[in-house]
């Protein structure tokens, strides 16, 4: 094997260090001795469970709406597609807190939709899911659209000549073809949803057991007890890394 050029290796190593050192900081400063006790605190477990549940539900929501949206962007020809694609990425550039306010203006008690929806999303677990899905969906849509563009559209044509409607061609041929892309997108989406803070606390508020996810618990713990915040962060980190590693082996690897 040829030696990698130093001009690439040096910035690569620096980049890796930049990403990993903060984690090292967390691990080094963690109060390991008190970790089991803190883990057993009721608030911690409920925040963790809530985080995992809402991130998973948000990912499901993103899959249900995001995959068809990605298909539309990749395959259908309609006026204003460029604009639509740009709009899809808006949550990426929007500060999450602003996203939360925007969600309130739409789904809030006096929001555009919320006022005739009959029920109120803010301060509910459903609200957490909505906030996370809003922020995480672009990751899924972009990943799936990329996979669809990479997949040969003529397979859909071949399916059509064999009698498959567009829907059947999509579900039987296209979806399995881009499954790795969808899985990668879903993982990104789930990870983003799991770490979501700004939109969640703004839109869904913070109430233990109902809307207080791990990132919110970490943020509030920071106000009073740095050690506790580190422990919570490590728990979130450990659980998410374990789940992602397990999924990767099964689906993506």
């Amino acid at each position, binding site marked *: 094997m040829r030696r990698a050029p130093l001009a690439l290796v040096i910035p690569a190593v620096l980049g890796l260090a930049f990403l990993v050192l903060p984690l090292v900081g967390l691990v080094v400063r963690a109060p390991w001795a008190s970790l089991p006790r803190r883990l057993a605190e009721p608030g911690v477990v409920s925040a963790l469970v809530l985080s995992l549940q809402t991130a998973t539900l948000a990912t499901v929501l993103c899959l249900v709406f995001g995959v068809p949206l990605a298909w539309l962007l990749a395959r259908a020809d309609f006026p204003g597609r460029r604009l639509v694609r740009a709009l899809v990425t808006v949550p990426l550039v929007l500060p999450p807190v602003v996203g939360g306010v925007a969600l309130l203006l739409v789904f809030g008690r006096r929001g555009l939709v919320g006022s005739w929806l009959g029920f109120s999303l803010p301060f509910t677990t459903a609200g957490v899911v909505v906030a996370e899905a809003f922020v995480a969906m672009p990751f899924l849509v972009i990943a799936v659209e990329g996979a669809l563009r990479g997949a040969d559209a*003529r*397979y859909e*044509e*071949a399916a*059509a*000549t*064999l*009698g498959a*409607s567009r829907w059947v061609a999509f579900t039987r041929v296209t979806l399995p073809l881009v499954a790795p892309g969808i899985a990668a997108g879903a993982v990104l989406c789930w990870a983003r949803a799991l770490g979501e803070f700004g939109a969640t606390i703004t839109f869904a508020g913070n109430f233990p057991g109902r809307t207080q996810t791990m990132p919110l618990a970490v943020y509030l713990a920071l106000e009073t007890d740095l050690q506790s915040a580190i422990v919570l962060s490590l728990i979130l980190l450990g659980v998410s890394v374990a789940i992602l590693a397990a999924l990767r082996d099964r689906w993506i690897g």
Partner: protein
Amino acid sequence: MSTLDAHLVVGLDGFRLDIRLTVDAGQVVALLGPNGAGKTTALRALAGLQPLTDGHIRLGGRALARVPPEKRPIGVVFQDYLLFPHMSALDNVAFGPRRRGLSKRDARAVAAAWLARVGLSGLESRKPRELSGGQAQRVALARALAVDPALLLLDEPLAALDARTRVDTRASLHQHLASHEGAALIVTHDPLDAMMLADRLVVVEDGGIVQEGDAASITAQPRTDYIARLVGLNLYRGKGSGHTVAVAPGFALTVAENVAGDSFVAFAPSAVSLHPERPSGSPRNAWQAIIAGIHRHGDNLRVQLDGPIAAAADITPAAAAQLRLVAGQAIWAAVKATETRAYPA
């Protein structure tokens, strides 16, 4: 009665396809033409993958132009087969029957039978990437035939195969086409495939039909440079008068036939002889030419000639050595009138 009766008009930017096609049940027609002639566009239009700008498609009396591809009784073998990579060979072939309403079990039974017919028993569970080129071609054929199409379309069915596999696959494809009861249309740029597989040839250039007929009549009397090159002939068009045809300003060829008006003259490269001096004797066509290029052609050398007319001459390496041929050299070319064929344009 003809099973397929189509008038295909497709306008794409800067290109217009306008051809009329008829194919009888049981007949195999080859759509032959150079790249970019519109062959594949015609095939896609028949399959419903490319909307018609104008014209009609009738198959067994049924109008299809506005029918979506999945509702047309048409099977397609794509150039690179497009076997679904995530499905086994069996599931690929069963896909069509399943869509046409068969139960999963029945569809698989039909698929297994088709795989057996194309000689692939035992490979049912292979994924496309585990198949050789020839095997993949046969799975693609089985998949297209498994829906029992009234019209079978094949897009360059042998183009992706290496020379050796091609011979075998061509033979087995010929057999399956012969036993297919519906109409079949092959798109190809390979004259050998066209002549060996099809009952009738339709030659397309620049979006229009330039010649059609059986292989013998087309090779005997090519009507365009493209066809002439395909069948290996020198071809000229000019004004005929008695036994001469004026094919270039101030240059006429003497021919055996008696022709009048617009005429073609064709002769084989092997009919052209080369001489250092002007040849004398017998009624010959002789002209001074410049050698534009020399390259191997089978056991012989093919010499490209410039001059009053462009022509190809085939000579033996021995003759070439004797003549000390080099590019740019001036030389005399000659063709006997009896070796030419002249026919009305």
